[in-house]
């Protein structure tokens, strides 16, 4: 049985209320039937101090290029600790900014295993959840 990732977006910002519901089966690159075969589990990390360019996904740990890895990251900081603490996601050695996750925000993105994913945290005691679904060998 395959892993799946589903997104539900509900918004009334336009007159015709937006409702997006989509799902993808998490399969290997170039396949519609062979499932991703590795999963880190969902790890929760508490950073007692603010962090800059802290690696949370290391490219060296994964097959690269022709792969369909997926990464989940969430700012899980509880509201009794902070309602404004952000987690900045960065890509690669030059720490190119992707964007900011405020408490409760999550990201789900593809990952090709060539660049590290780092984060900055804006306050102490930020809680971050991270998980990687991946394929053990790149598709040939």
């Amino acid at each position, binding site marked *: 049985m395959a892993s799946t990732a*589903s997104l539900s977006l509900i918004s009334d910002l336009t007159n015709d209320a937006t409702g997006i519901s989509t799902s993808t089966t998490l399969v290997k690159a170039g396949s519609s039937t062979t*499932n991703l075969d590795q999963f880190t589990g969902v790890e929760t990390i508490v950073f007692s101090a603010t962090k800059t360019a802290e690696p949370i996904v290391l490219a060296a740990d994964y097959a690269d290029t022709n792969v369909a890895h997926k990464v989940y990251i969430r700012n899980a900081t509880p509201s009794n600790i902070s309602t404004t603490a952000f987690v900045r996601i960065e890509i690669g050695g030059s720490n190119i900014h992707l964007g900011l996750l405020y408490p409760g925000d999550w990201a789900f993105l593809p990952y090709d295993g060539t660049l590290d994913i780092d984060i900055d945290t804006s306050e102490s005691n930020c809680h971050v959840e991270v*998980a990687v679904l991946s394929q053990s060998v790149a598709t040939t």
Partner: protein
Amino acid sequence: MPTTAQLTLSTPDFTGGGTFSVSTTLLRAGQSSDLDQFTGIAKVKKAVADADIVVFNASLFSNTGAKLYFKNTSDNGHILMEVGGNNIIGRLYPGDWMFIPVDGTTNITATTVVANQEYEFGIFHEG
């Protein structure tokens, strides 16, 4: 009514891998008020392979709590997603989608690799 985004991840093949869901309300950066602007969902079809298509133009947005939704709606061929030039985020294969924060400092680009690929995308933002 605010905008909400819910992820449901089901991983039945893995130890402890049940189904979990997380939901977030899309708010302005560091505030409790809702994101109030939306580009709508654009649908694009590329007759030929095309490199570095800008799907999030950072110069049009301030440093915000914006979110980008992008899905490869093609039947074949991956779409390569990159940030800030050619820093690879990853590959979206047919049916794959992503939902990421974008902060208005760097462009997000897409590269289609074969003819007749299709994709859809939209941005929730605060200006």
